[in-house]
């Protein structure tokens, strides 16, 4: 179970809902580990600056994560967390391992910025 202040995606239907009801989604799939916690914190910090993006997390060991693990884009990933960016339901970017603020905001600006 993830102990964060982000909305949790904990089922396939919840994942469908969040992707259907939000044009831009940043989803962090991880555990409560040292490489994941800074990314959750960072997402909470970004919420005010990116009101056009839904920031959500997902337990890597939960049932919903199997859909994420099957994605071809993450096939080569070997470090938590897996962070995925969806635009209109389509995966447009994915990263593996801890990320800095600059790395995350660069992606947010690049993949979501044009229409924000």
């Amino acid at each position, binding site marked *: 179970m993830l102990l964060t202040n982000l909305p949790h995606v904990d089922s396939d239907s919840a994942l469908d809902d969040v992707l259907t009801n939000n044009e831009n989604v940043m989803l962090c799939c991880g555990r409560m580990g*040292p490489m994941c916690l800074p990314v959750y914190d*960072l997402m909470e910090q970004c919420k005010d600056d990116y009101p056009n993006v839904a920031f959500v997390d997902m337990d890597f060991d939960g049932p919903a994560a199997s859909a994420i693990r099957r994605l071809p884009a993450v096939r080569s990933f*070997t*470090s938590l967390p897996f962070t995925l960016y969806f635009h209109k339901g389509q995966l447009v970017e994915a990263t593996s391992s801890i990320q800095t603020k600059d790395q995350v905001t660069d992606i947010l600006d690049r993949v979501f910025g044009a229409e924000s």
Partner: protein
Amino acid sequence: MKSEYDVIVLGGGPAGLTAGIYLGRARVDTLVLDTGTVGGQTVLSYSVANYPGVEETSGHALSATMLRQARSFGATVKPYASIESLRLDGDPKIVTLKDGTRLTSHALIVATGGVPRKLGIPNEEELTGKGISFCATCDGDFFTDRPIAVIGGGNSALEEAQALAKYASRITILHEFDHFQAHPWVVEEVKANPKLHFLMNQELQRFEGSEKLEHVVAKHKATGKETSVAVDGCFVFIGYIPNSRMVASMVQTNERDEIITDAALATSVPGVFAAGDVRVKRHRQITTAVADGTIAALSAIEHLTSRPTA
């Protein structure tokens, strides 16, 4: 956010937060700025078991407690600050953020800690997260029954290699010297583990792999013989470098870019102090960072009270 403070602390790790706690409790108007998440390298520790007074906790939880303490005593703590420039000579000290915000203080504490040392070899960035990892606890299970490498020869490298032996089929430890720097009893333990193999006196040349890591290539420093180790993963534990780049041209540093301080943790610039892993010191622990934060805060208070008022 207001713009004038008595003290600005750069860095929100254990040293910076401790300075915030002591300064806040002394009713010194204090701003703690961090360019990343609060907690510094401590948040990357899965478990902290030797912090006195705390039986065992995570680095994240310990940092969160320090943050709450600093804020409860009145310190302002701002994570993810984007710093554009610093001016440390004279009074006030000036910190300018990228959004144009100009912050001033009469004393400044540099507690910017360290950043993980990189190998600086081809494909290191490209294959990070695709075989190259820095956290055995986080990522070990991705390599169950697979061959991996561990880079480094200090306590962290060998202890993490031992932990990874629960998962991996075979572990090759590559080290730049012909002997380990780890404690003798740690070396003894890894040498007794049949899954662990050693390539000593090696200079790492490159990582190879297209979509994911496939080989680690190293060259023997004496013979020049190149060895390619087939692996699915590689864990890098080669220490830290001081995060002093922002101030290195303004305060005196040594040949390793560590800030030189006196016993009061004063730097070469009046009113500027340094605390934690960014300064010259032998032992880098959470406890020594906390001690530094305390001394730097008390020294900054002395500086404030002794400076001539307008």
